[in-house]
């Protein structure tokens, strides 16, 4: 979908509502990085590391072992500490210890609880540029409950303009069953797959499936079969009757 993956040093936003696989995708991004020789740091504000270790283990990722090997770190903290600008930075020790090439912040939405809405964009910009200056690729998780409804906006505070790439995850109801959709909304400086693809969370992580080619309106929350598919169904029905 990304025609070779995210670009080095880019800031990527993964947006979606609760339970749609943002954390799994973020962890997979770091674990794959370790496999490529790129250590990673996972910054969490709410979920405790022991839960993350457990959930990752269910997907076959032994994060404790990666930590022992100095290839991975989980930092669990409060958002206001990450934003502290005076003196030593919260991440300095991890940056020194494992020299990460990738970092995940789960989630950027939590920063909104500690800074005024008018300052959120500036603070997020400062964080992104701090990491970019150090040559670290970042994946920023954004909780966007509005994506479950009919309207579609990634963030309401203009953060989409700060990042180089946006991946949106969305649960969709199709024919009375809940499925998961993923789409790359933006990718600076590179071509990418524009189609909305189905994905599944398998025992080994996220697996991208085929595109929702037979449906339209999936992203707006009102999926319906495209006209050609409806006709095909009619023909198939007629052919069955003749038999």
């Amino acid at each position, binding site marked *: 979908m990304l025609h070779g993956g995210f670009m080095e040093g880019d800031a990527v936003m993964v947006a979606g509502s609760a339970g749609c696989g943002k954390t799994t995708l973020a962890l997979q991004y770091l674990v794959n990085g370790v496999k490529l020789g790129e250590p990673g740091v996972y910054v969490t504000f709410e979920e405790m590391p022991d839960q993350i270790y457990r959930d990752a283990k269910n997907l076959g990722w032994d994060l404790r072992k990666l930590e022992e090997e100095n290839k991975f770190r989980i930092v669990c903290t409060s958002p*206001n500490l990450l934003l502290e600008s005076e003196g030593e930075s919260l991440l300095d020790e991890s940056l020194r210890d494992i020299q990460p090439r990738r970092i995940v912040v789960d989630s950027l939405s939590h920063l909104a609880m500690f800074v005024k809405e008018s300052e959120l964009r500036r603070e997020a910009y400062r964080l992104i540029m701090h990491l970019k200056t150090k040559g670290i690729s970042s994946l920023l998780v954004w909780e966007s409950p509005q994506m479950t409804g009919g309207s579609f906006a990634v963030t309401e505070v203009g953060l989409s303009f700060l990042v180089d790439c946006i991946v949106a995850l969305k649960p969709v109801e199709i024919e009375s069953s809940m499925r998961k959709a993923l789409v790359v909304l933006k990718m600076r400086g590179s071509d990418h797959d524009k189609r909305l693809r189905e994905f599944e969370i398998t025992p080994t992580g996220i697996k991208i499936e085929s595109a929702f080619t037979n449906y339209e309106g999936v992203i707006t929350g009102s999926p319906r079969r495209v006209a050609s598919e409806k006709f095909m169904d009619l023909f198939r029905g007629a052919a069955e009757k003749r038999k």
Partner: protein
Amino acid sequence: MLETLLASEVTGDLLVLFHRNPGLIDTLDSVARRIGRTGNSIEEDVRGLVNLGILKTRRIGRSEVLLLDRARDREVLDAIAKHLKNLEGVEKIDNTKF
């Protein structure tokens, strides 16, 4: 050292919290919240763990944060394991006596 570690429930809760979550770096109040307590109620226990070297303090901007000394945590675990092994040994000797 073991006496301090086993002295109170709060100290036990803090040890378990930091041992299970070695990447936790937070202020006293936030750490307290993560074990369902208030900053004031854990202050003394935190001081005890800092004095033992299990927890470290660091200044991040205007805030003082607490974090685990991973090396010291391993030492403490080894000491506890050794102590338990010794107790087991004593128990075995006692069992043979009776």
